[in-house]
């Protein structure tokens, strides 16, 4: 760590986390080729304790990325393939009658994992989608009036296919707000694609099977807590408020950034500062995380989100560089 400051982590752990993060980054890059920026945002989302929505075409590595992440953080991995006939209980779990004890027993659903991959989430019915709501927001599920706690590191990676809209149920704004970020992976570059082909021949059949966890659950929890405590200058918080107000008052935006969105943005900026081995947030952290964090929250046409956010970030003034 370049700059020592008051933080909750002991000084000796600084080197450890630097090493662990470098390994984590390297591992993910070895699994998903040529997508360093996307992986960086995924890590931001992970350390910000937020959930991730990946919107992209099939076959671009969404599932691979999710499984690699689950393998890297050493947690339990579960996957749900959403279809219109998927029931909420298929996700949360359900009570079954034990014939021997003649008592109902709760059988946990896939949400009782550390990393949950919800594939093609927009194919599930709204009822099923809403079942995820409580789990994502409060990290708990309620079945038959009984509340069950989920893993503290519960991390949802949802995917959806933007091109096939027939027979889908677009996520409502309330649920979109539960995601910290929305990312697109995109096609790899030609060189990366060629390396991918070569790795399929020379590498192991399934590299994830051989992967050892890089971060334990406790370590991840510790660093997530540390990220939440990184200081943010008042002037930067005022800048965030100005940007949020600008989104609310922009004539082309139906729904601006909510206060919860601001909190998520701040947390994401803190996580980026942490990943940049810094103990404080700077304007770059906010601007680099603005697009994936705020983009998922603006009720704007899909293709207008990016230019609109660039326009806002260009015009809303940064804090003055003075003390």
């Amino acid at each position, binding site marked *: 760590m*370049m*700059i*020592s*400051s*008051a933080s909750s982590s002991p000084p000796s752990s600084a080197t450890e986390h630097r090493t662990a993060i470098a390994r984590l980054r390297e591992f993910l890059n070895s699994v998903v080729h040529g997508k360093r920026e996307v992986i960086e945002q995924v890590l931001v989302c992970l350390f910000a304790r937020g959930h991730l929505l990946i919107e992209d075409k099939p076959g671009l590595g969404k599932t691979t990325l999710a499984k690699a992440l689950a393998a890297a953080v050493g947690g339990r991995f579960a996957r749900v393939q959403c279809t219109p006939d998927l029931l909420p209980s298929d996700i949360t779990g359900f009570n079954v009658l034990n014939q021997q004890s003649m008592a109902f027993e709760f059988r946990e659903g896939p949400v009782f994992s550390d990393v949950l991959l919800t594939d093609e989430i927009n194919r599930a019915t709204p009822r099923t989608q809403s079942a995820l709501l409580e789990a994502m927001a409060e990290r708990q599920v309620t079945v038959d009036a009984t509340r069950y706690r989920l893993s503290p590191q519960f991390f949802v990676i949802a995917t959806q296919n933007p091109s096939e809209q027939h027979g889908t149920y677009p996520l409502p704004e309330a649920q979109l707000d539960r995601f910290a970020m929305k990312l697109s992976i995109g096609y790899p570059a030609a060189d990366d694609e060629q390396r991918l082909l070569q790795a399929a021949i020379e590498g192991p059949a399934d590299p994830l099977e051989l992967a050892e966890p890089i971060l334990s659950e406790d370590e991840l929890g510790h660093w997530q807590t540390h990220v939440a405590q990184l*200081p943010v*200058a008042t*002037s*930067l918080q*005022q800048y965030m*408020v*100005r940007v949020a*107000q*600008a*989104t*609310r*008052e*922009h004539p082309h935006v139906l729904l601006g950034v909510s206060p919860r969105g601001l909190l998520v943005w701040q947390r994401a900026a803190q996580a980026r500062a942490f990943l940049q081995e810094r*103990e*404080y*947030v*700077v*304007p*770059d952290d906010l*601007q680099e995380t603005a697009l994936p964090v705020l983009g998922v929250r603006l009720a704007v046409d899909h293709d207008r989100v990016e230019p609109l956010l660039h326009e*806002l*970030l*260009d*015009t*809303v*003034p*940064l*804090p003055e*560089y*003075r*003390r």
Partner: protein
Amino acid sequence: MSPDERCSLPQQAWLLIAASASATALAGVEYSQTGDFSGVFGTVATALAIMFALAAWFRRSARTWSTSPSISPLILLLMFAPFLFEGCVRQLGWEPHPLEVVLIVGVQAVACGLAAASVWWRHQPLTLIAGLFVSLFAVTLSAHGLTLLAVCVFLLCGLGWMITKYWSTLERRMGTRQPRRYPWKTAMVPIVVLLLMTAGVGFASTDRLWALAGWVPSSGGSGQDDPAARRGIGDGEALVAGQDDIQSFGPIENAPFRTSEEPSLYDLFNDLYEEPVVRNQKQDRSIALPPDVVQQLEAEMAKSQRATKEFSTQRKSRGEGQRGMKSLSSEALFYVKGRSPLHLRQDVFDLFDGVTWYPVPMQENETQPRLTMETTGPRPWLRWSEPVASFEIFGPVEPHAVKVVHLKTNIIPTPLSLRGVHIDQLDRSDFFRWAGPRLLQMEREELPELTPIHLQSQAIDPHRLAEWKLWGVAPDPRSRVIPDVPDQDRIRALATAWTHGVPRGWEQIEAIVRRLQTEYVVDPDARAPEDHPSPVMYFLLESQRGPDYQFATAAALLLRSLDYSTRLVGGFYVSPERFDTRRQHTPVVTADTHTWIEVHLAGPQWITVDPTPGYAVLRPPPGWGERLLIIAIAVGSWITTHAVSLALAAMCLAALWWWRRPLLITWAWWRWRGFAAVEPRQRILQTLAFVDRCGQLRGKSRPPGLPPGRWLSRQLSNEPHLSDEIRRLGRLADWACFAPAAAVLPTSEVSRWPQLCEQVVAAVWRWQPDREVAHPPASARSKNPPSLVSLSMGIASPS
């Protein structure tokens, strides 16, 4: 507290400066009245210091307050503070202040109180309104330069406040920071006008400036009498006396006529020009006149001598123990309202024997126009009928008014082409009679004191005399007499030489006058030797310097030798130099006693000609085109006389404008170098400020939403060897600005950051936005700034 309730620092700064300016304007009023500089400005400075301290405290504290305090009622209580103070002052017997001043000080106190709390929006408009009220009051009461300057500053600050307010409102409504384009070019128009007006107030002639005040009508007085009130209509005792303010024309129009046993006007001439020399030796007079008029002239001369009203041009020199002119001129004889310069006639002399001028007494059988009373509206005017030579040569009828204070004569001082006389309530023509050629006198021993005498006259436009061919067609023989003086022929020769090639008419008269005005010198104390037979010949041919009556006599003789009819006129010259700007009138004092001549036109019409240098004759009021021409000529003349200075100034300004960017960058560089902070954070931010400033001056301002590191790396992309330094500076800038206070400088930068600042500043210094840089950075590390020429070469146009 919502941030919306608080304003930005620049906006508050505009407001605080505006409040300070209005307070200074008010202080200027008090200072112009009392002259107590330290007392007045010490008090104001103390109050403003308190205001600024409170404003700073409010601004700092407001961040931590959840709600804004309701302090407006407390601020309004400040209104009563000056009244309490004034009560104490009056109780202690100190010099009281007028009520209006106490009231306005209260308003200013409220303005200062509101300005102190101006960190909150809602106090700002009222602050400016109160300040505007105070500024208007101040500028109405005082023309002191400081007051006018302060009011200008107030107006400019108000303009700045409105601009920032506009932006703030726009940003709050839109929620985004809009690109700020300050209307500098548009704003320069009112700023330049204000500056010109300020310069005009400071440097223009006060008389002409205040003559504009006549455009604004004024009301009467309030009728109240306050011992602390200033002098003015309806206030104070000056009204009753009315001796030094001709503005009191209205209220005392019906002042009682008073009589006096004081000596006549001629004593004034003797006071001014000293006693005439009484010569014992007799002189033979031989007047070259036709025989039929000689007898008549001799009789008139004898009558004039008996009347002891002759005017000798041979006078004693000024003695040591005599009364000085200063004491004589300390009190006005009368006041004149209306345009000046003006020649007011008191006596006319047309017979000259070589030394002495003799007035021509009225002939009993001489026909004078009959005086009648004509009532125009409620006012009775004295009129008379006379054939007017030509209406084309006259300007419009102009009003003047005369109020006599110490003039002990019954001859009304009037201009030449008089058309009417009016005294309030006086509707009887038998109060007036002719005393000489167009000289009116009242049938009293003296003119009524302190009573306005309104006059109507017409000035002659000399430009319209170019085609006048009637000169001397109806000559009065008395006014063409050339005395038999030695070297009489030389006068004619001189006049002929001066007018050689000049056609007869006004041009010849102008030629004579021009010669006298340019080649002769006015010297009130110059006297001819007492034994000299003819003082005017001594003046004209030998000394070439003398008092005004010698100029007039010489001009009269020269013109007579060219067959023009002339006569000498004594009276008063209403000098525009004496115009009283506050009271809008011109006092006439003893020193304004003057002598000039009149040249005959035709019939009863004469024209005033003043050959004395420095004296002008009233011409018809110019039209707008002519005024503009006069102004243009005056400006052109001023520019011509100051051509070298102006050219130098223009060149300096042009050079400053041309090199403004290099100069400003150099200044920023010296400031960065000279005021280097020791603390790393401050020094890094100073470096960043320098970089931003250079960007602005080179037309590449950093966009508001772009961090400096990214911006600089884009701008200096043509210096790839500096990419690492730029990235480091961006990181250090983020650390300096956004890291917690406990975060120390990165250990890798502890010893390197000063060098980093130097490197980046040197790179920015030689940064050429539109050109490729091929030089290695070796010279950039020099601590000496590049030369101005090399710098200017590196600064390209923003376009």
